């Protein structure tokens, strides 16, 4: 299963218990307080597994993870690179 906007929304809703109504690709996730920092470790494991990439410490930044669009962009970049 590939990582998509839909699969991330499904994950936020079912796994992290977030109300995803009105959340789109550009909605800030952490800086808006929608997700808390403790969810980040879980989110990173989800991205690595579903996106089939390995993130290093330099990839794990708020800017790379703060919206669905940015997460997908990071995954694409890692796959291309």
């Amino acid at each position, binding site marked *: 299963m590939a990582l998509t906007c839909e699969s991330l929304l499904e994950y936020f809703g079912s796994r992290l218990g977030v*109300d995803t*109504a*009105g959340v789109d690709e550009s*909605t*800030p996730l*952490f*800086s*808006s*307080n929608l997700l*808390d*920092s*403790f969810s*980040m*470790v*879980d989110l990173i*494991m989800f991205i690595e597994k579903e996106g089939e990439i390995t993130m290093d*410490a*330099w*990839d*794990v*930044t*708020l*800017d790379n993870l*703060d*919206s669905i669009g*940015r997460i997908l962009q990071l995954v694409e970049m890692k796959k291309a690179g």
Partner: protein
Amino acid sequence: MSVLTLYDQLQEQVRSRPDKIAVVHCQGAGRVRRVTFAELGGMARKFAASLAVGWAYSPANSHNTKSPVGEYAHPAQSMGGYAHPSVIPIFMGKSPACIAAMFGAIGAGSAFACLNRKLRPPQINAILGATGPGVAITDGPGATVLAAGLNADSPTARMRWWVVEDEAMLPAQRKAVEQMRAAREAEYWSEVQTQTRAGSPCHEHNPCRIVGCCLFTSGSTGRPKGVLIAESDLRARAAAEIECFGITADDVLLNVLPFSFDVGLNQVLTAILAGCTIVLLDSWLPADIIRATGEFKVTGISAVPAIWSDMLAAGLSFDPAGAGQSLRYLTISGGDMAPQHLQRMPALAGKAGIFKTYGQTEAFRATSLRPEEFAARTQSVGRPFGSARIYIVRENGSRCEPNEQGEIVHTGLGTMLGYLDADDPQSKLRPNPFRASDDPADVAIFTGDLGWFDEQGYLYVKGRRDEMLKVAGNRVYPQEVVAHLLALGGIAAAEVVGVKSESNETTLVAFVVLASGAAHSAADIRRQLANRVSSYMVPREVVILPAMPRTASGKPDRPALLERAKVLLQGGT
């Protein structure tokens, strides 16, 4: 001689350096907002003026306004005869507006209380029940939390909420504000009527006698404790930090800790009083901290051990020729750091000096270990700071000899005024038993921490008195077991808790986070540990976690771990 309050000192900075950048706010998604001292001071002026008027909104004239701290009168009591509390709760993310609201509250003669934005409605209601009704300030993310927990009888509903808008407010956040507006509980701050007053309203009062802020900690009963700090002490703490860390207007400080936590709060007050720039970063990720340090040429960072442990685990450091070029100092504040991690800190810090500090919410920053002392006394937390005094006291109240362990008692700089609930049964505040010509303080804080001084007067902290465990008749401090676990290698973080059974037997449970690439099993860890320590120190259970749960201030969430350990021992999962 007239005393300049924090608010007055911000306005002094507006006069002397109006165009200098006071705050750099990293808003996420690459957005950065810069605010000058003139802009910050202007915002604070508007808050001060609107808060002074805002008292008229206070709905509950009958609220109990018993002064919790003796001669420290609630400062606004005399204004217009309104009976109201003087604490302004601020429930918002770190931002220039949040800083302006804090200073504005002081300017209006009130105390501010920054509530951590990770709090949820039950905790917020408990806190607001203690502060009483009145004006409170929030933002879009805060409003969504408040609106979700709103019901007519809750303390949240008895507040008059001012919502500070942000151009990036999400539709869900606007909806939450509309919901609160419909219930007549909120309005946008931009709509709040202000009245220009000459000078700062708090000049009507003696600024030496006003409460500056209220910090909330969760007491051991789980009920929030409001710790009241004098405005004069906030100033003295900032002045002491400026002196200790050698801060000038040329510094750029990186703020990663919340303002609801004493170390984060003191850092922002220090920056404003020193006239330097503070960078607000809402991330504890190692790569974010290093990038921000390089991008904004940061010179000083105050952080808790967990932040540095994460950076060590990620294998990142401040490159003296790169991102760490400007970095002059960093601090390890607000808790223990395991010896194995402390030894690796100089390599992480690069050219920056390392300050270790020790203190509590009730007794801020009692001691500090200077960078030049770090190598020789890595385990110490240093010597008393500013005019703070530290005594080590035996159970019978007499003073300990050097190298003799006892309770750490703090007087002078940094001691609280008292609790918001004046009758708190677990008060750490007592009359100063060592009052003398060289220590004129009236009160002392009995910290509940155990420690000792060496012959040269350096303090070593053993742990909390109430954390000492008796396992099969042996004294065990959880931190000792943690140190042995980390020494095994392959373990990035560890915490140990003791679960007491009904028969008063204590069972140890360890929680560990493995270093990247490590593949120990729980059984391996127990076996290896058993080769190093006495059998009573080997935890019955070792639980491997993906990450350590943390409190809002970045400390390990030991109450949550203890709960988990209890469930585990009862046969749950």
